[in-house]
């Protein structure tokens, strides 16, 4: 057995596993180190410089997110130098960022503002001319890129590359003009983009944002209620959070967007696909059936109660079996049903109606 390796963080001795970064060790120990370009799903970039800490014997501060823990390392994450660093860094970010705290949360909370507040960064530095190019003509329905808020942390592009393996977006240009682009600045619809929305999810500033809540002037995210549920589009079982405006739909509540739980907390590790993340407008769609319908004598569909409707269905099915035999019946269930629901469908087919003709659309 090798001895567990240890280091110290602000004087506290902590054990770590080989391969862990300084940030991971600190987070496990409950020590907060601010980050912007870090996402646990991605290889560290060390680019935003928010997480710099002091390491004994190192002349320069080091990015906690990208520095491997080593035995005996003595790390300081709170000091006068680090505080000065956080303040002036956040002040620079603010100078390059649109003004205003609240308006920025329509897309998602902006961590630049949050960290600037947390570290009491000066807010009175002159604002700079913004020269990052966006893609204002991109008419894709879901993803809006607001270049003014972009801090070029490359989380979106690294996510698209490393997690989605799609690489539809890239860092483009250089220097202060660095921005996020597609090939030839085409609409995302004309690229390999799969509209997974992961770039939105990982963006720390709301620069990569969801169009629908923005266009419908939804409330800031912090005023929304989150309800955890399971996506029912396929059998993977992704967890997702319905973001509900409690006053929407005349006080009944309205789902205004869907977000994924934090990476590392559920099976889908913060990821969703285009259906799970964006295809929720059916919830309030006017064509959606909200009560069973039964055809009347006149051939027209009429609203009915569940017991009425089930009664009619049972009569119809049994009638077919009686006239044409049990195997004249077939049951197809939806891939949007849960495993339990699918189980019940086959049980019903076999045990109640006595046929083995049962299928599920996801099987094809």
């Amino acid at each position, binding site marked *: 057995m090798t001895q567990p390796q240890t280091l110290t963080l602000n004087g506290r001795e902590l054990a770590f596993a080989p391969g862990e970064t300084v940030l991971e060790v600190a987070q496990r120990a409950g020590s907060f180190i601010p980050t912007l370009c870090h996402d646990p799903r991605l290889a560290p*970039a*060390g*680019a*935003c*410089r928010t997480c*710099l800490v002091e390491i004994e014997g190192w002349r*320069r*501060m080091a*990015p906690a997110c*990208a520095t491997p823990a080593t035995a005996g390392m003595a790390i300081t994450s709170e000091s006068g*130098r680090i505080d*000065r*660093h956080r303040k*002036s*860094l956040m*002040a*620079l*970010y603010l*100078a*390059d960022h649109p003004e205003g705290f609240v308006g920025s949360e329509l897309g998602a909370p902006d961590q630049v503002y949050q960290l600037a507040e947390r570290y009491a960064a000066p807010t009175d*530095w*002159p604002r*700079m*001319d913004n020269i990052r190019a966006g893609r204002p003509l991109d008419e894709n329905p879901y993803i809006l890129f607001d270049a003014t808020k972009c*801090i*070029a942390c490359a989380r979106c*592009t690294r996510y698209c*590359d490393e997690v989605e393996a799609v*690489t*539809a*977006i*890239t*860092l*483009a*240009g*250089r*220097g*202060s*003009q*660095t921005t996020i*682009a*597609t*090939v*030839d600045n085409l609409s995302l619809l004309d*690229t*390999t983009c799969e509209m997974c929305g992961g770039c939105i999810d990982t963006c720390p500033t709301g620069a990569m944002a969801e169009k629908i809540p923005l266009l419908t002037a939804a409330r800031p995210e912090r005023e929304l209620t989150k309800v955890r549920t399971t996506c029912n589009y396929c059998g993977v079982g992704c967890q997702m959070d319905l973001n509900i405006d409690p006053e929407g739909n005349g006080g009944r509540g309205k789902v205004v967007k869907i977000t994924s739980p934090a990476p590392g907390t559920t099976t889908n590790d913060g990821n969703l696909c285009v259906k799970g993340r964006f295809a929720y407008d059916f919830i309030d769609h006017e064509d959606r059936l909200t009560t069973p319908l039964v055809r009347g004598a006149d051939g027209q569909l009429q609203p009915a109660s569940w017991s009425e409707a089930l009664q009619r269905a049972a009569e119809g099915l049994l009638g077919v079996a009686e006239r044409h035999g049990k195997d004249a019946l077939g049951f197809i269930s939806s891939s949007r049903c849960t495993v339990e629901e699918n189980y019940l469908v086959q049980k019903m087919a076999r045990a109640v109606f006595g046929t083995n003709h049962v299928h599920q659309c996801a099987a094809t």
Partner: protein
Amino acid sequence: MPSQEDRARVPEALEAAGGLRPGVARALARQTGVPEAEIYGVGSFFHLLSEPEVEVRVCQGLSCRLAGAEALLEAARESGLKAEGCQCLAACDQPPALLRRRRVLPALRLDEVRGAGADPGAIRAAAAPDDVWAGQVGPEADDPEHLAINLLGPLDWSGAAFARAASMGAAAVFDGLERSGLQGRGGAGFPAHIKWRGVASQAETERYVILNADEGEPGTFKDREVLLRRPDRVVEGLAIAAAAVGATQVYCYLRGEFEIPWQALEGAITRFDAEGRFPGIAFHLHAGQGAYICGEETALMEALEGGRGMPRLKPPFPTEKGLWGKPTLIHNVETIACLPGIVLRGGDWFRELGRTGAGTKLYCVSGHVARPGVYELPLGVTLDELVETAGGYTGRLQAFSPGGASSGFLPADKRDVPLDFKALAAEGSMLGSAGVVVLDESVDMAWAVAQQLRFFEAESCGQCAPCRIGTRFLRERLDAHRAAVAGAGRGEALAQVAEVAWQMNEGSICGLGQAAALPLTSALEHFPDAFA
């Protein structure tokens, strides 16, 4: 999946396609398998690729501006050329310079541009293609006893130094290098032998040697002269390095504007190859595509691998994980060119050539001196001695930049400081690339600083916030200061400078951002009246 080689050839494929025009990235993606967005991101990073419509670029570096580069750019535009300004072309001794495609046309006169009209090809059309660029060098003698590089010495294809190193064995070569005291000539002054031993001691046996010929620090043009005049020393030095650290592949990265130095280097490689001098060692030439930051060693490796030239985090250092993750020895052209002499004459000989540091050093001088050029002198001469070699001052000395834009400005009363690594660092400056720019009293220091800040803003890779935002912030603040009338908001315009400079130095990933505020902070310290 695209291979390592597929990725590596993206920049040059973009060049061959005439730059990043619409449709090019998508077509190249089909050929190479590299994602189209990635190709677009690479093309958009490099100025020689991202603006395919530009026909000529006129250097707007400090030395060229002193010689009328702004009027030259204006004239080019008036002639109907699609002309843009660009950053230092490594022709500061022959200003103002213009770039046509990848060819630098130095010391261009206004009438040459006006006379050509809207046809870029007509500018200096009659010039001899190969030797239009070699400039003034000194001392004007072939003196192998006292000059480690000996720019005017005869070319030597014998391979004697390589043969000698081979018979000594690697351990003795390392010892000789240590005794020589050779410090890297690319800017950081790191002791060479430590890197050699570092690479040689890696368990990984696939190792590389890289020649850094991306010379782009404003005021610096010595590597150009070495490549033009002593390509034999460069190639033999590379072969010595490769054999000593156990590498068989040598990559030479030349800035894209070095079309003529490229020909010289390629010619030397062909000549040695024809004579079979360095068996088992292969040389590969790569062209930069217009990005000063690719002179930073890890950015250079990213660019060689076909990526956006953004510096990597260190550690790990290239000696351990360099090109394609393999142990890599990277050196500046001048460092490499010192090697044959050190091997043949011994480390002690080299060390004693210097005065306050080891060896001779190539100093570049431009600005207000009589004979701008490259002078090989003992390491540690003073400014006055250097300028005397260069024919003397042409005006009264006000300020000088001892080592390129990154070294900031020093006042005339520092003229006695030895131009070496230690003494200049003690002054808060640096020897850097020894690109000395001399400014006389006619120069408005705030104007001079503004040019240096423009340089860093244009050349920041944009990866890390302190540099990406800070370079622009400082430039905008200085512009505001210069635009304001004395008294009205001039002081406030610079209120955040000290804090931003601190942040850039502490927070930036690489040397560009760490040094980029120095022109302004050093000028504020030494020339407060210029900002009153």
